[in-house]
């Protein structure tokens, strides 16, 4: 029996539809569901931080809270966030004297005299959660990555401990955890911000010098902060597009 044109078109059409739907189903089966929290949509957020240097009193609360919250190794001293003290002659921005005794964990023992003509201030440091992160670019196994909500995270089960990212970070924000021999860094308290809490450092900052901000939320106060202040980021010449914005950042700060 010869195949009629009608039958031929009928069979071909059916074959096309079936294979397409089978391929679609197979794709979905292989991909699985993205493992994210049910009430939190990564696509709805874009996290950053605003830091007001004029408000930082160098109390070290952020450093201590970060260690408690994120189980950062106490000894030897590694930090996800730390505070630096700058001592600058006002006419010599090129040669600041910077110290950070134990990251500011126990405060800053008095070292400089008042009214000696120098400029003294504290600068809190943490991962800038860059939009174009060099650390993410160099990771050979995809163990460090930009999350869809703009946080640079580490997959500890995947990290080889090769230290490329430690060298790549222009801000010195990464270290190898001696217990796991994998890299560790500020996660912007990802386990907290995805539950609607602020970071441990912002929670415990007594003066509000640090403010977590969701740049995708139009009502977040970070927009007013960025609009009303002369803000700057660290090392803009590195083209890393950081999302930690400093108000009152002195030219001597590296």
């Amino acid at each position: 029996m010869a195949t009629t044109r009608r039958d031929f078109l009928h069979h071909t059409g059916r074959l096309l539809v079936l294979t397409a739907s089978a391929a679609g189903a197979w794709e979905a089966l292989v991909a699985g569901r993205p493992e994210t929290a049910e009430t939190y949509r990564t696509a709805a957020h874009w996290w950053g931080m605003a830091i007001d240097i004029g408000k930082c009193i160098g109390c070290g609360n952020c450093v201590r809270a970060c260690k408690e919250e994120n189980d950062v190794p106490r000894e030897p001293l590694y930090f996800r966030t730390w505070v630096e003290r700058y001592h600058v002659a006002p006419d010599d921005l090129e040669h600041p004297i910077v110290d950070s005794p134990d990251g500011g964990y126990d405060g800053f023992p008095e070292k400089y005299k008042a009214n000696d003509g120098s400029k003294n201030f504290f600068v809190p440091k943490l991962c800038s959660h860059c939009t174009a992160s060099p650390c993410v670019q160099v990771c050979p196994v995809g163990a460090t990555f930009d999350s869809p909500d703009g946080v640079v995270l580490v997959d500890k089960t995947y990290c080889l401990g090769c230290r490329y990212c430690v060298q790549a970070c222009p801000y010195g924000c990464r270290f190898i955890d001696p217990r796991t021999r994998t890299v560790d860094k500020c996660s912007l308290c990802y386990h907290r911000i995805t539950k609607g809490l602020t970071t441990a450092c912002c929670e415990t900052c007594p003066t509000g010098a640090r403010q977590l901000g969701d740049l995708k939320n139009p009502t977040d106060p970070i927009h007013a902060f960025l609009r009303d202040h002369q803000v700057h980021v660290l090392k803009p010449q590195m083209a890393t597009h950081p999302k930690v914005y400093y108000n009152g950042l002195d030219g001597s700060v590296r």
Partner: protein
Amino acid sequence: MSRFLKNKEHLGRMAGLFALGITAFFVARHLLVPPQFGLFGHYRPGALADNMASPVQYAGRVVCEDCHADVVEARKGGKHARIGCEACHGPLAAHAASPGDVVPKRPGGRESCLHCHLFNVARPKTFPQVRVPEHSDAGPCLACHKAHAPVISSLTQ
């Protein structure tokens, strides 16, 4: 053509080796690369859930204020009203989860006050700071100051 046929066995062996190598590569790749790798980017999407799973240590002041309404009232209008409770009292998520079992330590003495208020030239000029020997004897700060709304209580008695 005859030259090609003469080397037939030789070429076959090579083709077999190649096929074996390619198969081994795909098997290894299938076993080593997690199934969802690359869904959002060059990483394992499950790593997001891993990062979310860390335990929370600092409950946040909203949780504290649920129970401690008296302290909210005491702090109202004071200079310390906007400071998170756990800035001085330490991480208390465990206390918030079972208030009877985990009793927080009360910050006493001077250490927790001096973290912020000890004189340091790098602190902003307008921030209240003390040089301890000039300020008082070695007594605890709370003998004169109220921590939740810092006014000098002994002077108003």
